[in-house]
């Protein structure tokens, strides 16, 4: 496994844990964060979003097979 993929998996996992944690806590308290402040749980779900955005891109970041096939069929060229 390449380092990039490992970092991607770690970030994806971290992002999902942050989502799960903040939603469970938010569900118990009736809200994520506190009105009028920038409380830690609201910041954590935001950080979770960034991790979830970047993580899978590093982990599964190659060109998708379905798109590759479409291009090869249209252009007749073999993509690397």
């Amino acid at each position, binding site marked *: 496994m390449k380092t990039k993929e490992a970092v991607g998996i770690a970030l994806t996992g971290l*992002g*999902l844990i942050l*989502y799960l944690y903040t*939603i469970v806590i*938010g*569900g118990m308290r*009736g*809200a*994520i*964060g*506190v*009105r*009028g*402040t*920038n*409380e830690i749980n*609201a*910041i954590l*779900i*935001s950080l*979770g*979003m*960034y991790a*979830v*955005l*970047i993580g*899978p*891109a590093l982990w*599964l*970041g190659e*060109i*998708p*097979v*379905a*798109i590759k096939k*479409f*291009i090869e069929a*249209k*252009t007749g060229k073999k*993509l690397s």
Partner: protein
Amino acid sequence: MLSLLILVIVAAIYGVAYYFYGRKLLEQKVVKADPNRVTPAVEKFDGVDYVPANKYVLYGHHFASIAGSGPIIGPATATVFGWGLPLIWVLFGNVFIGAVHDYLSIMASVRHGGLSIMTVSENVMGKRARVVSVIYVWMALVLVLAAFFSVAASTFASVPQTALIMFLYMPISLFFGILVYRYGVNVKLATVISLVFVAISFFMSFYIPVYLTYEGWVLVLAGYSFVAAALPVWYLLQPRDYLNAYLLWAFVALAFIGVILIAGLPFTGPIYTDFAQPASILGAMGDLGRARVAYFWPVIPLIIACGALSGFHSLVGSGTTSKQLANELDATLVGYGGMLTEGAVSSLAVITPIAFVWDFAQLGAMVNYPVTDMLAKIGIRAPTIIGLAAAERFYTGYALLQATGWSRIFGLGTFEASFIGFRVFAATALTAFIVTTLDTSNRLARFAWQELFNWVKVSPGTKKVLTNRWLASLVGVIVGVVLAYPQIYVPELNRFLPAYSVIWPAFAGLNQLLAALMLMTASLWVYAVLKVRGGVTLLTLVPAMFLWITVTLALFVWIFYVMPSLPMLYISLAGSFIIIAQTLNFLLLIFFIQGIRKSK
């Protein structure tokens, strides 16, 4: 019957325009679109920006990207003129300027290898025109970012129930993209699975609001815009916009249904108030804000942006859309159809509801429900909808219309619950519109910034640093945040207003002028490159010149009446952007005239 009459007029105008103007005239006579011509998405495929997409997926992306807060905030603000004039401007602008501009921008770009509309301007007006256009475009995009950071942050802060779904939309979209593109799962199945998750998220977000301050939201959204703009389009942008389109279609469909449900009830708002409004409608403060110099014409383009027409669309069309178009014939649905859909949002989901619910006491008496008491519970004490800020005007108007309509079927006992539900739904749709636009705008600002350094002479090392993908994204985001972050204290109202109330007219003005310039570029492309001759060339040229004159005059009103009244930060940034843009605008007009002369 007024609501039904408006619905029929809007549907008839758009139906006729799409078939005759879009398909028969523009597609077949002007551009002569060819389904067998290989598009740049296929020819230059790179897996990041050039990626062919299904036409409905692309329509979803394009519609979601162009429909930021423009079709909502602008028409909501313009209702101070009464609801008649904004409606006419939206319909007229949509059919004769906006949709033509969007379609031609996409096709001109497709025929130029998917390169931006600025490249087209170089081909028809020379290299100097391209440099001027790139500077202009970068400034316009930065103002788009600033205005949209502020509108979205203000909405999340006011309606915190809309936030959780925004967070959950990201992993759901990625999940959809990976299912379809990586594992080859059937699109319909993946759509159903993902939409079930979206529905669950929507209900969860009702019960778990997310609280951050306005400033906190500006920073979160800026971070999102920065990260998302650097990711490959297939990975987030295509699937997210595709799924978002379902939410937005549901929003538009419910607007249609709502208008039908209130049939027979009169509007409580006036069709016309006054042709001249105080300059405060354009963001002016103090004494200047009280001067009644905001005449509907020419200042309307500083208020209504995307709902009628928008230069930003040419950047989306020639920036991300043209690079994903799999077939030339798809451009009519995506470009012309996308713009008409946006007009439908403005006319049926924004202007009609505001016109209907305008006077809260009158509405309450008409539906026999204590509307003013219900609104007071959530802090709305203004007697009319015009007393609310533009974004709040929209989601409150939409929700009150829906609550009235549905309570006629299910009884008045459902009025309050329907109002609360539809208010969150409308605010969710607004933020969905905006969030999709944030990463597209930043991606486009990055393209413009990188393109600029093809001409600015710096050492190769410096150029490499300055045009780095991440740095190029960061520059636009930083300037956008600086403008959007402060809330502005208005002494006469004794309250703070979100920055968009000041940024919006500057953003809208630059955006509309860009539309005029890009429509002029597209007209020149039709004349000089496609060699189209005769009366049909006037179909693009006359609207372009009308718009250019209108917006140029409006920006002078802004420079003389609004700019001097603003805080120093906005004079130095938004003010300098507008003054530079106005100067570049005249330069581009000269290049345009030279281009016409050369191609004769």
